[in-house]
């Protein structure tokens, strides 16, 4: 299978702050790729950079940025806006901020399609109603005439998803789509996304901090830390044989229902995420790492313990297993 989205050596900086340092990600058709990490690790800016939506003070460099084989790095704003909302679409954590409170759900949904496809408003509204039904919203015709504030959080997120699907995108970028929702609604929305993916062959780049979401939805996972992809692998391998000390630490921090021992402390990672500025060298995790060695301050090797599985660390897979 070929990659639909190919990001390689992505660098993003805001002034002297390096937000993303040499991140490479591939999202294939019909696959969910989870970008996981804690706040400030660069996962959201990575998504914005792919969409060409970085704020003005953000600088983007990359070795390659290809969508369906086409280079989008050199694309100007006009070309990008033609792609956005059409072949690639994005949904956000808080749907209220990305829906315009002054317009009805229907007119906002229709506008996307009228703009990109040049269809009539009537046809666009029909399509909107069809998609609202598709994301399992009951009585879609009535919802088209409602304003965003009249909908619950879960419904709004469904509307956002339906809106993103208006022009049958091939790539959907979802930035923490369920973080603001209750657990029961979260499960419903994630199921919906998985079903849509199966039916439409969507490629999904899902950004989240929640390892539970990752485990249940991802085909492939990239773990980001301080702007770097520190580990990348298929989901089962990552949870069964995590390699990078940060991934391992992160997994030990999560209380797993059913496997909880109340008298035992949770695993935790000491310290805090460092501020990484340009010219930073070595492993950004070394101050918090229990396995730190003197050569962690130098250039770090990317290791490949299995096919399709790589991580960024000085310690070889065989030594990692015993530590």
């Amino acid at each position: 299978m070929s990659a639909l989205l190919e990001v390689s050596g992505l660098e993003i900086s805001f002034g002297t702050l390096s937000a993303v340092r040499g991140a490479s990600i591939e999202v294939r058709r019909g696959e969910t790729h989870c970008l996981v990490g804690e706040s400030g690790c660069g996962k959201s800016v990575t998504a914005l950079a792919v969409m060409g939506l970085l704020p003005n003070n953000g600088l983007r460099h990359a070795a390659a940025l290809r969508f369906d084989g086409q280079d989008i790095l050199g694309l100007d704003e006009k070309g990008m806006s033609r792609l956005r909302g059409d072949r690639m679409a994005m949904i956000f954590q808080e749907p209220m901020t990305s829906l315009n409170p002054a317009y009805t759900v229907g007119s906002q949904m229709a506008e996307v399609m009228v703009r990109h496809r040049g269809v009539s408003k009537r046809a666009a509204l029909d399509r909107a109603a069809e998609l609202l039904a598709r994301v399992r919203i009951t009585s879609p015709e009535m919802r088209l005439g409602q304003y965003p504030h009249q909908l619950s959080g879960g419904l709004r997120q469904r509307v956002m998803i339906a809106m993103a699907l208006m022009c049958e995108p091939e790539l959907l970028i979802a930035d923490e789509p369920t973080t603001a929702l209750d657990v029961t609604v979260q499960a419903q929305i994630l199921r919906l996304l998985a079903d849509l993916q199966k039916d439409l062959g969507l490629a999904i780049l899902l950004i989240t901090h929640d390892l539970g979401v990752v485990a249940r939805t991802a085909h492939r996972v990239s773990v980001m830390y301080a702007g770097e992809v520190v580990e990348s692998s298929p989901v089962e391998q990552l949870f069964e044989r995590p390699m990078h000390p940060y991934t391992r630490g992160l997994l030990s921090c999560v209380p797993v229902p059913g496997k909880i021992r109340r008298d035992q402390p949770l695993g935790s990672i000491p310290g805090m995420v460092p501020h990484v500025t340009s010219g930073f060298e070595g492993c950004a995790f070394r101050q918090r790492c229990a396995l730190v060695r003197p050569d962690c301050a130098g250039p770090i090797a990317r290791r490949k313990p299995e096919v399709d599985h790589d991580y960024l660390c000085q310690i070889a897979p065989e030594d990692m297993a015993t530590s």
Partner: protein
Amino acid sequence: MSAPLIEVRDVGRQFRVRSGLFGQPKRVVAVDGVSLSLKPGEVLGVVGESGCGKSTLAKVILGLLEPTAGEVLIDGKRLAGLDRRERAKLIQPVFQDPFSSLNPRRRVRDIVGMPLEAQGEATAGEVRKRVEAMLERVGLDPSMGERLPAQLSGGQRQRVAIARALVMRPRIVVCDEPTSALDVSVQAQVLNLLAELRREFGLSYLFISHNLAVVEHVATEVAVMYLGRIVEQNDAETLFRDPRHPYTKALLASVLTPEPKLGIPETGLGDTMPDPTNVPPGCRFHPRCPVAIERCGLEAPATQRKAPALVECHLATIT
């Protein structure tokens, strides 16, 4: 058995909200006939979705909101009649948002020292000594006392909030979603700290959270709230192993454990969202309940009690 530290007796709390210019004022039933008790040394977890009334309940127990029905006893004394200093020595809060829970214009040492200052018994020197010791105990360097909240990370702020709550050695701490705004690794640090402090100071927690995994980790007893009522309660182990109420079952099924092969669960709850301005007749969960029968829409289920278990459902029994 020792007397309960918190006793909530049939507490209700309603709000009036006006919607729109000419809208009829609506009654929001946030908490409705809740009774519970917290025994010394216990951690009572309260779980539920947003809008279920768990935060309102916490505010009522802290005395920040007056109940519209029922009463709250803290250490056997009526909360409403407690002197503010006496109350502060018994019960302290830790809130969710580490940004809005610290006054942005005051230094950390003043924030942590505030409860001592309010008691007005300790000298300035004693206050400083106790604040420094407390900061150290929650894992902050005493030099952080000079900083303003804006100069701290989310995790550090939450440690400051914990230090403020514990500097007077209260007996009860009400934790309202204390780790929800934090990153996973920081959440683990804070949870471990709360657990250590509880053992060390002999504290009891009322622990409110929407995160069931976190509650399972910390709580000894758990109450599940739905639309203002406790629909199920039990000791933590039993509740998580053998839930009785269909809502508890659905909540537990929705938790995404980090186990890749399990896929995304089907909750069976449908689209109707609970609306506290319009509480359904009969069992308030019946519009979403996957196993509801006709009776559920007609008649509110009785509260079945057999300590520590409680359940409110026509189709569930306590064994």
